[in-house]
């Protein structure tokens, strides 16, 4: 049909636009309602699930970690706020805040000995010792979550991977690649020598000594001149387990 000019044509066009707008609004409203409904169902289902498995979530570290995974998949962070309904429902926020505080305490207590770098395994052991009155078991996953919450405060808590092991750093020291490689090497026996570093990593002696000196300065390494072979050994309290009871007692 040919479009006719004139006022009538304009009016028809305006009326049509209004109709479209109305229809569009209706559709959008329908969609939002549906969405709201779905969300409400989802929330109540999740709530019901959490309530039903509250004890499992609290007591069983594996279950807890799986629950967290599930939450992450659907974009829910149960730890986001202590005021959130998750926290009220599960007390799960408190659990991690408490864990966080205990981790800070352990890191501070052992810092004079290990220079602020501690083996994740050892940290977990010390945590368990500290919490032995609580029957609730904790896993490495719990530690990682608690530490990730600490990071938000900008206090310099961080988990770093060195070789196969995870280390928790509580001092703002930046470790470069050289330092990490030395720490990795030290994991075998708890110590390294300059010779060993040069040989295993094919470094010049200057580079090895430089990196070791920095680690000494940072309090992460200790020298040992007492071995029969007369070679200086550099020990790393953060990678050897002998430290377990030092610091925990003091």
């Amino acid at each position, binding site marked *: 049909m040919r479009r006719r000019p004139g006022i009538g044509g304009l009016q028809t066009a305006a009326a049509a636009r209004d109709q479209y707008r109305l229809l569009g609004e209706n559709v959008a409203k329908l969609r939002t309602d549906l969405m709201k409904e779905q969300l409400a169902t989802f929330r109540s289902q999740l709530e019901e699930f959490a309530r039903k498995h509250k004890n499992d979530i609290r007591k069983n570290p594996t279950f807890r970690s799986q629950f967290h995974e599930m939450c992450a998949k659907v974009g829910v962070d149960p730890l986001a706020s202590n005021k959130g309904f998750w926290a009220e429902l599960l007390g799960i926020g408190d659990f991690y805040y408490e864990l966080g505080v205990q981790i800070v305490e352990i890191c501070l207590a052992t810092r*004079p*000995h290990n220079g602020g770098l501690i083996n994740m395994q050892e940290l977990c052991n010390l945590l368990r010792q500290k919490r032995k009155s609580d029957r609730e078991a904790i896993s490495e996953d719990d530690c990682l979550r608690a530490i990730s919450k600490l990071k938000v405060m900008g206090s310099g808590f961080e988990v770093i991977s060195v070789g196969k092991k995870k280390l928790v750093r509580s001092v703002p020291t930046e470790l470069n690649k050289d330092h990490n490689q030395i720490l990795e090497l030290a994991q075998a026996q708890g110590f390294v020598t300059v010779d060993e570093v040069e040989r295993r990593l094919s470094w010049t002696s200057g580079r090895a000594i430089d990196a070791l000196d920095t680690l*000494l300065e940072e309090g992460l390494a*200790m*020298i040992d001149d*007492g*071995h029969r072979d007369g070679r200086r050994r550099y020990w790393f309290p953060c990678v050897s387990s002998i*430290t377990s009871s*030092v610091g925990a*007692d003091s």
Partner: protein
Amino acid sequence: MQKLGDFKLPAFFNYPPYFSLQPVRDTREKQVQLWKELILDYCRTQKIFVIGLEEEFPLFSNPVIERSLSNEAREAFLSALVSEGRAEWLDKGHRKCLILWHRIQDWADIILRFAKDNGLEDTVTTVEEIRTGIESRGTELHGMDRTVLMRALKLLEHKGKLAIFKGTSADDEGVKFSV
């Protein structure tokens, strides 16, 4: 946990670098602190009053990890105790060290309490009696070092709490409490 007799050794005693003086200040301070506590603890429980730097001393070496303290390290740890008033060098060469796990003042207080508990006020006893007599059995005074005891008694004499006088036998002195 490793033990020396009935004494429980701390974990650091098995960690080799603690037997080498640490070059970095903070690390060394922590190291010295741990050794100071260990030496005082050990001497108190084993009733050891004098440590000879060049003599065998169970804490100075750990056969399990094949490490022993150098003379320099021994002197450093003991000097740290001396600077805190918890030890005194007995000679200029720093070869012998008197360990005061109680300060002289604390020993004096213990002696006064001992005198009161045993009704020794206004009576006469001897230095040897205090160290080895029946009354002191089971107290910290029993078997204590004579030098330390004399120092504590002299302090009390200075304060007018007692009088020391030469007894009839040449090797013993009398003590009269006047608390």
